[in-house]
Every structure is written in structure tokens, then in C-alpha cells.
């Protein structure tokens, strides 16, 4: 399948056979020995980036830990009072399905199933957009209208404790930074779909698809923790 992939040892590229499908024409950058080293190096770089992302979110989980320990009763009450676990649960299911479809898309690239690759990427994008739609129109906008906003701007008349704004601060910061990752992830997936439409992903080359997939799984991973901590156990 990959026997005709052009390889060069010293960064000297032989002419690429234009009759090959686009994914076989991928030529690694001259500072790599071969396509596989380039793939492994890019993936290690992606994993290192993901660790910094986890540490970014661990700061928010640390703030959650501190304030939940200090005001556990207020947090539990605020969680049930301000957040609707059903929306959170639906969004969890949607993100899990999208993680599954992006894993399928990588499998499709490995198997050279070009049509299924595009369909699975498209479903993943739709799931991401659904997540954002539910988040914005069923959570963020109603909360803003009722004054359930973070910190000093909190103006909801039904607040029962001085710590309600604190809970909302943690909710807004962690879910909005997570949401911004969903926005970026959807953009990256759309770019992958465009690349896939050019048939540039295939069994011997799908590096950027793999790395965008890793990023998308990270978004899912963070939500796996945010959902129970914010919506369920308060």
C-alpha cells in the first residue's frame, strides 16, 4: 500500500510521482529522517502540549477544591440551585459520542476509507456545535439575563448566601475556558475536514488528524471531570 512512498535520507527530495494519491505524496520536513520520525515527534509534542493544558485546568480544579472545602454546604446548594444537571448530562453524552467518531475518523484514515473519514469528521463537528449551542442558549444566555454572573457583577435576587457569586465565578471560568477549547477544537476539526476533502490523509500520513484528535479527546476528558464536580456533587 505504501511501497511507493518517496523517502529521502538526507533531506534531498526526489521528484514526487504526481500519479500517487495526495496522502502518499506527503514529504516530511528536511530535518526529519523519514515520515515516521516526523509523525512520532509531532505526537510527542502534542502530548507535551496536552500536559500543559491539564496543568492549566488543574489550577481551576484547585480553586474548586479550596472553596468547596471552605464552603461545602453553600457549594452543594448552589450547584443544585443554579445548574441543570440534565443539560450537563446531555452535553456529556454528545462529547463522548464525538470522541468516538473522531477515533473512528483516525481509523478510517488508517484504512484509507476516505468517504467514512469525512462523514465521521463531520459528525464530530456537529457534536461540537451542538455542545456549544446547548451551552450558550440553554445555560449562558438565561444565566446572564437573570444576573447569575461571576463575582462583583452577580445581581441575582434569589441568592441565598454570600458565596453564591463565588460558586458562579468558578462555574463560569472553568466552563468558559473549557468552552473556548471546544470552539478551537471545532475550528481545527473543520480544517481537518478540508484537508481530508483533498484526500491528503491516508494510511501513511495522518499526523495532523491524529493530533487534532488528541486535542479533541482532551476537551472530552476535562468535561468528564467538570460535569460531576459542578453539576452533580456540587
Amino acid at each position: 500500500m505504501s511501497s511507493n512512498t518517496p523517502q529521502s535520507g538526507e533531506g534531498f527530495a526526489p521528484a514526487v510521482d504526481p500519479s500517487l494519491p495526495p496522502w502518499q505524496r506527503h514529504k516530511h520536513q528536511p530535518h526529519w529522517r523519514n515520515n515516521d520520525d516526523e509523525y512520532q515527534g509531532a505526537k510527542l509534542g502534542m502530548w507535551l502540549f496536552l500536559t500543559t493544558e491539564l496543568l492549566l485546568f488543574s489550577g481551576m480544579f484547585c480553586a474548586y477544591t479550596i472553596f468547596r472545602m471552605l464552603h461545602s454546604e453553600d457549594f452543594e446548594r448552589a450547584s443544585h440551585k443554579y445548574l441543570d444537571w440534565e443539560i450537563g448530562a446531555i452535553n456529556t453524552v454528545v462529547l463522548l459520542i464525538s470522541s468516538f467518531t473522531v477515533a473512528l475518523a483516525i481509523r478510517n484514515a488508517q484504512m484509507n476509507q476516505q468517504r467514512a473519514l469525512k462523514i465521521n469528521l463531520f459528525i464530530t463537528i456537529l457534536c461540537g456545535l451542538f455542545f456549544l449551542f446547548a451551552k450558550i442558549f440553554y445555560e449562558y444566555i438565561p444565566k446572564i439575563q437573570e444576573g447569575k454572573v461571576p463575582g462583583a457583577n452577580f445581581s441575582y435576587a434569589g441568592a441565598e448566601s454570600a458565596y453564591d457569586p463565588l460558586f458562579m465565578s468558578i462555574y463560569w471560568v472553568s466552563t468558559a475556558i473549557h468552552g473556548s477549547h471546544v470552539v478551537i477544537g471545532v475550528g481545527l476539526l473543520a480544517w481537518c475536514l478540508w484537508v481530508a476533502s483533498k484526500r491528503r490523509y491516508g494510511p501513511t500520513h495522518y499526523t495532523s488528524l491524529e493530533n487534532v484528535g488528541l486535542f479533541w479527546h482532551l476537551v472530552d476528558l476535562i468535561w468528564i471531570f467538570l460535569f460531576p464536580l459542578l453539576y452533580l456533587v456540587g
Partner: protein
Amino acid sequence: MSAHDTQHGGADDHGSHGHHVVSWQFLFGILVLLLILTGLTVYTALEVYLGDTGNLLLALFIASFKAALVVGFFMHLHWDNKFNAVALLFCLLAGVTFIGFTAIDIGSRHMVDPKRAEMMTPEVVKQARERAIAEGRLEPDNDDSANQNESPPE
């Protein structure tokens, strides 16, 4: 992988690099398991009462198991270069240290000085003050004596 010879553009050139292809049935099984565990998280949080900390720990335990499924199988770490797994484990170690030591600090301030426990929840403050008064480290004030004179069942 390190001694890969670029001269060999053979048919197995890309088949031997750990590009592990997972069957869709296996991936679908992981998805079903993740959805069942999500249902379990919701059910236990809403219907099973194990106390504040008990419910929190159970939810965290299930979430960690789900995260392990995603990382291991959806993100292919189970079949991947082990160096990537080492990078992730060191990050998790840093995160656990960061959050764990903060929690130990917040949770043990009343043991050092009951006066500093005023940041804590009322029950913890009350217990800490009672213990300090019993050990003669703290003078009771009006609130403490009021609490002590009341008989528990009201």
C-alpha cells in the same frame, strides 16, 4: 524505530511503527462503557447518599476510570510510544501534588490553631474550638458556653 533505515522504502515501511489500527467494534464497546458509566455517575449522585465526601469521592473515582478509558483506548496511549505515557504520568503527578497538598493545608489549619479555623465551615470550627477548650488552649467565649449549655436534642 530509532535505527530506522530510510533506504528501505519497502511494503512494511509503515506497518511496523505502532500505527495501531483498532477495530470499530472495540471503539464502540468503549463508547458504550463510557455512556453506562455516565449513567452510573448521575444515578449515584442523585439517588445514593454516601455523605458529602463519599459522593464526591465516588464521582471522582468513576470519572477517573472514564478518563483512563479515553486516554488508553480513544487516544491510543495503550499501544503508543511509552514515552508519551511517561510525560502524561509526570503531569498527573504534578497535578495531584498541587491539588492534594492544597487540600491537606486547607483541611488541617484548625489542627494548628483553632483561631485560624475561622475560614472553615461552622461544624469544623465548633469541633476545633471544643477540642481546644477541653485541652485548655482556648478561653470559652459567649458562643461556646451557649453551645455547651444547650442539650443536644432541641
